[in-house]
């Protein structure tokens, strides 16, 4: 089949109806832009959350128990295993602080480097009774504070007085309220004393030199401490990503609705255009232009329109992701969401633009190409 006449007719029709086809391109661009913007933001969130978890939880494996029952001696044993880089014992206790939920953490102050704590104000705790708190509790800086522990497997309810000597930079910033852990960090030895648990902790963080050790080591720990849980960094990241994916599902609903609207616009305009072009197509078929050539010609137009719309949509969407971030900033969500140019998102945007445009113009195209010239020409006058 020859295509020069197909291209000629397509090109001239595009030019003759450029106003209307620009509208179609815009409809496609809008859907694509939203898709690209929200996908870029979702991707950025995943990168951000994963990065934050790596920072918050630098260990490859965490051994955690509801009871303070893990002997600190275990640290030596695990540390001597081949491939283990670092082992840090700590106590993690859910607490409340003036009505706010908090997490009381006892860490070995000597090994504070391991936890990559960065202070915004004050200094690290040096002795028992001193604490540093997360930015979200920053208003307590310089004061005494009463950390309240409810009755739990760890022991009876009690109050622990601390003096807040420093503020550490929040992890996960204000990203999602539920993610706020409101850390209160105190020296481990002192906390063990206060809780009457000298020599024991309820969590151990382990870093390995080679990631292939993670799974076997985690398995071994599960066997050794059947009453404790063993978390790997990867499983935590996976869990967090699942939360972001939930947000992604919500985004996808918005995207789907927008794309459906784009599709309806394409369908409506192409149907009207097909109706208007019936006389022209009847003539073409009467003089021997094949139905396939007619279909191809309209398809070419749709492709051209959707490539233009898709490209504009991708550009606008990527720009829009930056704007969305700025908007979130105005709304008080001030974490540094990375906006990355993800090729998969762009390709997905382009493919979606094409698919939506082609799918929604299929019916008008088929109708035009199946047109029987006589039906129109007979009614010609």
């Amino acid at each position, binding site marked *: 089949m*020859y295509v*020069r*006449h197909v291209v*000629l*007719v397509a090109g*001239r*029709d595009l*030019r*003759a109806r450029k106003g209307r086809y620009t509208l179609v391109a815009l409809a496609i661009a809008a859907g694509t832009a939203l898709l690209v913007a929200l996908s870029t933001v979702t991707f950025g969130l995943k990168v951000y959350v994963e990065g934050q978890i790596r920072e918050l939880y630098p260990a490859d494996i965490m051994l955690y128990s509801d009871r303070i029952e893990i002997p600190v001696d275990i640290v030596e044993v695990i540390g001597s295993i081949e491939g283990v880089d670092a082992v840090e014992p700590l106590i993690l206790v859910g607490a409340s602080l003036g009505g706010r939920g908090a997490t009381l953490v006892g860490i070995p102050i000597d090994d504070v480097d391991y936890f990559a704590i960065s202070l915004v104000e004050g200094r690290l705790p040096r002795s028992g009774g001193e604490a540093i708190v997360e930015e979200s509790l920053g208003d307590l800086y310089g004061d005494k504070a009463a950390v309240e522990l409810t009755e739990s497997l760890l022991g009876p309810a009690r109050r622990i007085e601390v003096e807040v000597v420093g503020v550490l930079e929040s992890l996960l910033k204000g990203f999602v309220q539920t993610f706020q852990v409101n850390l209160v960090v105190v020296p481990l030895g002192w906390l063990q004393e206060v809780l009457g648990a000298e020599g024991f902790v309820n969590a151990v963080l382990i870093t390995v030199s080679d990631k292939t050790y993670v799974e076997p080591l985690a398995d071994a720990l599960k066997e050794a401490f059947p009453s404790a849980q063993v978390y790997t960094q990867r499983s935590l990241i996976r869990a967090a990503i699942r939360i972001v994916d939930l947000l992604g599902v919500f985004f996808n609903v918005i995207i789907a609705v927008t794309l459906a609207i784009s599709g309806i616009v394409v369908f409506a305009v192409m149907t009207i255009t097909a109706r208007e072009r019936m*006389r*022209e197509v*009847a*003539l*073409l*078929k*009467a*003089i*021997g*232009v*094949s*139905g396939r*050539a007619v279909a191809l010609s309209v398809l070419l137009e749709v492709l051209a329109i959707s490539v233009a719309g898709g490209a504009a949509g991708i550009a606008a969407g990527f720009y829009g992701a930056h704007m969305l971030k700025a908007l979130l900033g105005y709304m008080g969500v001030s974490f540094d969401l990375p906006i990355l140019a993800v090729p998969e998102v762009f390709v997905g945007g382009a493919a979606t633009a094409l698919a939506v445009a082609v799918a929604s113009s299929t019916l008008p195209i088929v109708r035009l190409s199946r047109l029987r*010239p*006589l039906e*129109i*020409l*007979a009614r*010609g*006058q």
Partner: protein
Amino acid sequence: MAISLVDVDKVYRPSRDVEVVALRGVTLTVERGEIVALMGPSGSGKTTALNIMGTLDRPTRGRVYVAGFDVTEADEGFLEALRLHYIGFVFQSINLVPSLTALENVALPMLAAGYPRYEAYRKARLLLDAVGLSDRAGHYPHQLSGGQQQRVAIARALANMPLILILDEPTSNVDVATTRALLTLFREINGVLGTTIVMATHDPEVASIAGRVIYMRGGVVSRSAVKLAEVAGEPVDVERVRERMRHVFELEKELVSDMAHRNELVRRKAQLLP
């Protein structure tokens, strides 16, 4: 023989229990190189007969032969190719693609037939020149008068040098002077290219260029008469026209022989060209 209808009926069924008999037992033959006029009152079946001859419509009964092919049950793809290479149409009203210029409208069938772009536009210019519209090549249909549009349509109909030209009331929208010019053009085309012309008309003056007039009434052929006194319009100076069309013709022969090895229809047409 260029076209032959043998005992053709055409019945339309616009709705389930309405039947319109447009043609009834029509038998007629058009010889190669003839000009035949179909005359008769409105609704007598002229357009239906032309559409069947032009393979745009199929008979309900009977057989149809065009350029030596039995097209009665031929498949749509074959008929498309046949229309493209063998038949030129000028319809009653819709004739040009509105978004294409006059030149592009004329070039279109050649591009569809696979002519090289440059040659298609070159020949389109020659054809516009032949219908006296070389200065309107870049105009769009809406910028042309009815008569000019009709002439572009004729140039377009001639683009692939058809063996048969089918004209349905080709002068119904044009003034007397333009009608005369068109009639002269038809006689030139017929005289110089040997193109068979079948046309429907109400106008006795138009019919006067035909060598034979077929009268229709109520879907049947009522009378067939071999013509008639004087012919309208200028006498055709065949030599002058042949000179004017020479370039078109040479180009066509060249292109057709180039394309012949690719297309059986074109190969056969090349043998039929004068």
